[in-house]
């Protein structure tokens, strides 16, 4: 790692601190924003997320090597952390830190995008089922029952078997498509209770059609639990991706996803524990940050606390 990488890394940390400071300033204007930052883990969580996102974006700057680059396959396998390779090298003599930085792109990206797919579908299905009820609700919820009946990783394994080498966008789509069931239940429950509220009746009485009622009155009020579950869901997706990659059925090697890195490092864990432990630590940190932010969001967006 040269001096410029260190400077870039410092810059990433400063950028993350700045993000936290700016968000905190903005948030202090509203009561829910203040509730968010009252959580002791909210600010550190936000920092961790901002830091890893910055590292992912600036990977070419903070990483001294290309993620696939085998520095010296003969002499530089399983090197322990040093000034040159801060997190050591893996069994294929690749720089663990560089792969970690580039891997953030893939792991975080898959987490965010797959969750976006899942929340979109889950939100739409849940809102439809909850608002229109009747046969549509019954049919959609039976589908959800089936979807929830098989452990997700098992379902994913079966589906992933459809391809020899799975492209990352397909993987994102698949994770999203197998991950919306719980969200749709949540949204449905929320919509069911919201549709009985008087302000929804008032909107209908004023002549608002179903589209406007759902879009303007129901969903904005159901947003809080959806956002919270999305924050927690990104973490779950990252864990799932890691698990799949670990089994060799996720992101295809040699692309540097954090799950892949653990899988690559695993066989040599006794000699070179760093190559499997650091990516795992990174996943744990990011998921923990997401959980912390999700918890804080849950409190901040709780409509019951809005009344006072």
């Amino acid at each position: 790692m040269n001096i410029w990488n260190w400077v870039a890394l410092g810059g990433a940390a400063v950028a993350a601190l700045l993000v936290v400071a700016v968000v905190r300033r903005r948030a202090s204007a509203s009561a829910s924003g203040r509730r968010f930052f009252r959580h002791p883990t909210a600010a550190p969580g936000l920092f961790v997320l901002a830091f890893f996102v910055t590292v992912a974006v600036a990977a070419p700057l903070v990483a001294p090597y290309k993620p696939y680059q085998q520095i010296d396959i003969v002499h530089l396998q399983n090197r322990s952390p040093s000034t040159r390779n801060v997190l050591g090298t893996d069994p294929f003599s690749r720089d663990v830190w560089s792969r970690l930085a580039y891997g953030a792109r893939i792991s975080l990206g898959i987490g965010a995008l797959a969750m976006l797919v899942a929340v979109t579908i889950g939100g739409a299905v849940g809102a439809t089922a909850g608002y229109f009820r009747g046969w549509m609700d019954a049919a959609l919820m039976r589908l959800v029952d089936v979807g929830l009946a098989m452990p997700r990783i098992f379902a994913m394994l079966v589906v992933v078997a459809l391809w020899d080498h799975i492209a990352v966008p397909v993987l994102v789509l698949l994770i999203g498509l197998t991950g919306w069931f719980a969200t749709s239940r949540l949204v449905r429950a929320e919509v069911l209770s919201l549709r009985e509220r008087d302000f929804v009746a008032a909107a209908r009485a004023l002549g608002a059609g179903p589209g406007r009622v759902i879009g303007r009155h129901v969903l904005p009020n159901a947003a809080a639990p959806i956002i919270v579950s999305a924050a927690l869901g990104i973490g779950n997706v990252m864990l799932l991706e890691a698990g799949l990659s670990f089994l060799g059925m996720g992101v295809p090697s040699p692309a540097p996803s954090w799950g892949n890195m653990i899988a690559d490092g695993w066989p040599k864990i006794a000699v070179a524990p760093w190559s499997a432990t650091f990516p795992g630590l990174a996943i744990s940190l990011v998921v923990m940050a997401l959980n912390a932010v999700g918890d804080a969001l849950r409190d901040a967006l709780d409509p019951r606390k809005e009344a006072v």
Partner: protein
Amino acid sequence: MIAPPPLVAVQDLVKHFAGERGWFGLGQPRAVVRAVDGVSFEIPPAQTLGLVGESGSGKTTTGRAILRLVEPDRGRVTVDGLDVLTLGPRELRALRRRMQIVFQDPYGSLNPRMTVRQMLAEPLAIHRIATGPDAERRIAALLEEVGLDPGFGRSYPHELSGGQRQRVGIARALSVEPQFLVLDEPVSALDVSVQAQVLNLLAELQQRRRLTYLFIAHDLAVVKHIADEVAVMYLGKIVERAPALALYAAPRHPYTTSLLSAVPVPDPTAQRNRIVLSGDVPSPMHPPPGCPFHPRCPHPKKNDRCRTEPPALRAVAPGQLAACHFAEEPL
């Protein structure tokens, strides 16, 4: 003098709620809640009908069924000559400009994620009444009409007090310039001092805009001050209907009499001859046979006929209807 034709006419309105359904929500419902069970009344233009009853009497469902916020099972409702229950979605939306509703809980009836201004602008946009600066002018005028500073437009519901919220609810109902308002317990959730403010406002608005009100309430004292005619509901049926003066002076149904006597009077020196009814209101899922009130009826002449034969709502005095076999011999 010929009485003007009624603005609102309700005939034999019925709404039964299905209980839990079997077979994944597709089977036959098991128990039926007879929320509204054959209700009829008329309201002349610019008059107020007070609809009174305890919880579970079906008064709220009646109000909502008239506006088709719940779909009634049977009956006929006309507003200004239009048959409400046969309208298609498009015509119904057009009719929504003529009839509006104000809710009991002024917090629950306002969307917590919208500002007052957004809430008032929405109906103007839906019905293409006004946009842009014209809409802003109208919103300001509406707020002023209900006694709020136009500056409140930027507020969210949780920033307002109960009375202010209810004023916003009224302004929203008025925004489409309706002729008929269903007021569903509009002051029940408010403190006494604020309750009086809102009642006065409603009275003024009625005067100024010649509004017709269906005033739903459980508080007979409040209704006394605002209604021209009063209907008393019990277990989904109207048991007595009369001009306000007559009803309060000489109630004919024993339920009305008991209800009136149960209202606490803020005067420690007043003679109290409270009739305390025994037991609870029966479940509307299993209404008693015969007269629905007979299990709790304190009438001394109560007999087998009350237990078996449901009394019809019939005229017992000029303009006064009661559903009691002994309406001629009130308590």
